[in-house]
């Protein structure tokens, strides 16, 4: 190898090393903090407003619920394993906070209606919860859903306060709802 070729090789190698260091740094930065709480351009901003058909029967539901103090929007699917993990927690929160004006809306994401209904019947349903489908994934696109389960909390002013990627739990949801209700009222 000539000296010139050697120098070029060293420079290229140094470039690769720096690039790898940058990648490692970005990787580390992305993984810091609570992995379930994700940033989103929506947080702090107004929630997308979408009207979706009920999963069963006729009728529509508007997100966010205009009469709710807090709207919880949960994207789920029958084929999503982690949706099974969080289901009981979501129902428990919807039930516990129903008197405080908290409304849970569960949106079936890229799922057959029959499969979504079967999933809910298996995992449990509540008359306090609204179950809707999402034709054309309009809501998912509006919220920028990346993967499911994914859950958004919307305050009484219509602003998104939190996005949870992965399974949510009752303690985390309750804590955020406490914060919203305490902050607003």
């Amino acid at each position, binding site marked *: 190898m000539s000296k010139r070729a*050697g120098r070029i*090789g*060293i420079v*290229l*190698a*140094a470039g*690769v*090393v720096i690039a*790898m*260091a940058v*990648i*490692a740094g970005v*990787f*580390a930065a992305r*993984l810091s903090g609570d*992995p*379930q709480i994700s940033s989103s351009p929506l947080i702090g901003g107004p929630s997308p407003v979408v009207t979706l058909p009920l999963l069963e029967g006729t009728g529509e539901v508007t997100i966010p619920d205009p009469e709710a103090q807090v709207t919880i929007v949960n994207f789920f699917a029958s084929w999503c394993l982690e949706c099974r993990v969080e289901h*009981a*927690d979501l*129902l*428990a*929160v919807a*039930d*516990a*906070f129903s*008197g*405080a004006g908290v409304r849970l809306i569960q949106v079936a994401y890229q799922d057959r209606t029959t499969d979504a209904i079967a999933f809910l019947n298996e995992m449990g349903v509540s008359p306090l919860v609204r179950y809707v489908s999402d034709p054309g994934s309009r809501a998912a696109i509006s919220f920028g859903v990346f993967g499911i389960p994914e859950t958004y909390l919307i305050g009484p002013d219509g602003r998104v306060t939190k996005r949870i990627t992965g399974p949510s*739990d*009752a*303690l985390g*949801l*309750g*804590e955020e*709802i*406490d914060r919203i*209700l305490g902050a607003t009222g």
Partner: protein
Amino acid sequence: MPERARWQQRQAQAARDLEELDQQLAEGEISVATGLRLREVYLVEMEEARRGLAEQTADEDADSDSSAERRSSAGFWNPGRIVVLAILGTAAVALVISVGWFARTETPASSEEEEFDPSRYSNETMEAVITANADHPQINGMRLALAARYFGSGEFPQAFVHYREVLEHNPTPGEEAEALTRLGWMAWAGSGETQLAIETLDRALAAAPGHPQALYFKAIVLWCGAGQPLTAVPLLEEVAEALPSETAVLTELAAARAEEECR
């Protein structure tokens, strides 16, 4: 001429001189004495040449090793290896960070259990957590915390539900005593069931003998519910001994001893 060649040439010349010397001696061209002196000279010359050649060889070997080492080092740190090492290093860093991250995601559950502070959460949040984790072996602690909150605010029906659930979910003796103590008190204070209250408080004391609150509640139920102030006295004495800083107990003890009306 290179050094090595010079030493080789001198060695070869000395060897040739020695051969010729033998021949000259054999042919009688030189005397034996001269031959011996010359032989000594040629042998010295040959020895010097041998040593010089050996030193030269050693120097050359040392140079060769050093050079080889330099070549080896340069070969190891070639650009290709640097790139490979960089990729491996990045992968290692990513792996370490990932392991730390996933370990951290596992950690909060236990740390939250250990450091759980009920005062940070609303009744609704605690209700939701309890409902979602009803079968968790350690949920009794949160049930008792929430029940105590209801009990303290006089919301007996809500407290009753959780105390009953604690009793049905393998309570420790301490948990059992706490639940029975509060249930016993609520039976009397909430429903006026004096006998049921005493029986329940006795069960609490059976679970945790000397439980100060169970003793105190039983004393009050006996005094105020059953009209037996003197029966309450030894119980209040036990409480006063266990909780010497509770001056109100001493006041009530004096009143019970005097068979005053309960207040």
